[in-house]
């Protein structure tokens, strides 16, 4: 057996090193009269070539944790380290981080309309990324690369399309442009934040295909942030489930779907509306997601939990994320879910 140096960022059985190693990341939103814990003690490793799905409901901290690694949230990072290429991203200067963003770590956001500049031609915007991060290319080479990128993401007639403005593109096409922009500099990590949420289902299927292709083309590791379990089932190799700013469960995608070991994951999978079959009475998780200004004591999920059933330990003691044999869960009573079906 290999010596596992860090039990939260290393996957048992994998001998290579993670590309990105995040430990104990905490972010607070500083308000006038209180500091709100948006992200608490997040830890994970991202391995080369894998797609890590990050799933959670609105306000679970899934976007904030990923964006704060890159200095892109208004929140204040209060603890943690994010190792990439032997350096801690959180200790970098703003200028150093700017070199990383859009270069070795690139992003695709949910809303392609507000992420593109409406008054610049699409080709120009793509060339701009190349100019910043691939200075070895001359003007002609940039132009060729832009056309090539649009072809990779399936934009028809790219020589003409580079001269157009974002409003002349449909939602799905704009999202393709965003993906082209993200892979322009052959990133090693691609963070996609709800990349298909704003799109229709037929277009979503297209864009997910493009994302797969873009990943193959660049060999990047992907962090896919989504609330949609279907997208996770389609795309992810490993999954991290977040609730109230914490990682509550992580593991391989099949483990999580087939035998969840956290009651929240189980509830989420059980309440997902299915298209394949009509259910007369849907399972649902009672109550509402917590407000980070008034987090419950102990385990933040305990008031809605089907396993806790009012046990005192859940209300007083916050469970830590524990390694339970190559996967992780933060539940005092995870043993009771052993062998559970979603």
């Amino acid at each position, binding site marked *: 057996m290999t010596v596992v140096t860090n039990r939260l960022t290393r996957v048992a059985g994998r001998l290579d090193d993670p590309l990105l190693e995040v430990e104990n990341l905490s972010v607070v939103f500083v308000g006038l009269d209180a500091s709100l814990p948006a992200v608490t003690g997040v830890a994970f490793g991202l391995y080369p070539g894998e797609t890590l799905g990050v799933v959670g*409901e*609105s306000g679970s901290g899934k976007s904030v944790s990923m964006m704060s690694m890159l200095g892109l949230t208004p929140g204040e990072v209060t603890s943690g380290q994010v190792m990439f290429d032997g350096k801690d991203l959180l200790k970098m200067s703003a200028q150093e981080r700017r070199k990383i963003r859009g270069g070795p770590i690139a992003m695709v956001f949910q809303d392609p309309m507000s992420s593109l500049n409406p008054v610049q031609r699409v080709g120009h915007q793509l060339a701009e990324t190349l100019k910043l991060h691939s200075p070895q290319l001359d003007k002609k080479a940039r132009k060729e690369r832009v056309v090539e990128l649009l072809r990779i993401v399936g934009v028809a007639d790219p020589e003409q399309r580079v001269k157009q403005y974002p409003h002349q593109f*449909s*939602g*799905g*096409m704009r999202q393709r442009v965003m993906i082209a922009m993200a892979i322009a500099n052959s990133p090693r990590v691609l963070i996609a934040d709800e990349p298909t949420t704003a799109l*229709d*289902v*037929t*277009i*979503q*299927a*297209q864009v*997910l*295909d493009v994302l797969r292709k873009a990943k193959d083309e660049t060999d990047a590791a992907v962090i896919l942030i989504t*609330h*949609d*379990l*279907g*997208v*996770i*089932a*389609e795309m*992810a190799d490993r999954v991290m489930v977040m609730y109230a700013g914490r990682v509550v469960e992580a593991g391989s*995608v*099949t483990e999580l*779907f*087939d035998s969840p070991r956290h009651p929240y994951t189980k*509830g*989420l999978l059980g*309440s*997902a*509306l*299915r*298209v*394949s*079959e*009509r*259910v007369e*009475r*849907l*399972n*649902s*998780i*009672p109550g*509402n*997601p917590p*407000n980070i200004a008034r987090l419950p004591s102990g385990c933040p999920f305990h008031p809605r939990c089907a396993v806790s059933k009012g046990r005192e330990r859940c209300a007083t003691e916050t469970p830590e994320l524990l390694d339970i044999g190559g996967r992780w869960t933060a539940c005092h009573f995870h043993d009771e879910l052993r062998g559970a079906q979603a």
Partner: protein
Amino acid sequence: MSAAETQPLLKTEGLEVHFPVRAGFFGRRRSTIKAVDGVDLTLALGETLGLVGESGSGKTTTGRAIMRLNPPTGGQVIFDGRAVQDIPEREFRKFRRKFQIVFQDPYSSLDPRMTVRSIIAEPMVVAGIGDRASRQARVNELLDLVGLESSHGDRYPHALSGGQRQRIGIARALALNPQLLILDEPVSSLDVSLQAQIVNLLKDIQQELGLAYLFISHDLSVVRQMCDRVAIIYLGRIVETGPLAEIFDSPSHPYTQALLSAVPIENPNERGKSNRIVLRGDAASPSNPPSGCHFHPRCFRAEEICSKESPALRHLGSTDHSAACHFAGPKTVLPRA
């Protein structure tokens, strides 16, 4: 209960909503956006009809036209045996009590400066129903019906979560005892764990009050859980309609087939096993729809006739399942991926 056996509560016949557009210098160039272009629907009491389509398909405009929020430019809406557009404005205000709408966004559809209690009571105040005390009693009844506590009534919308706000939207719509609720994407903006709660709630309310629902949605999984019958709309026209199970288990129109096959898988073990139809391109703009069948440029079965002739909605077999496709049949086979 099927619509054929009973007198339908709601019927639209050839419903059209065309928006004039002015473009060019001084708006001299005129064109029309045919948002809704000849839609026939029927809906009986106690029944849920799903109106399913992607963005820009005209599903919301259809709902709004039924409520006269966007006046129809053609066709008829018959509610409870009366042609809605013939009712004079004064009388219509009273008539409109019978059908109410719940909007998609529970954030922008509630007045942030009103308490929950006054939001729910407002339709009764506007309609001049009851006195203060009886209205308060009705508000408490409604809060209870939608699963909120009467203490929630004294709060403001900002203090409530998305799911709770949507419950308020539903309570407000029910305040005047309508017979029909138009539900415009009522769970789309909610988190996964709350969607199931609201679907269950809507089903309970329907069972208790015997309402008819027109359920407008782009989300096929919600439609599967909610509806009795389904109508699929594409660029302002119904392309397929029928009982829920038929539409989902044996879709006949290529668009319905593509739509269903595009839904993400439910378990990672199904990866690579699904027969996905990935459609070419995007839906065209309703201001300039393709000739013939609107779907033909994206269709995997299209032949020459499709670009020339617009297919009419026709019955398939013996049920009330129909599709508007030259090649639709009960045995349409999905193409191999």
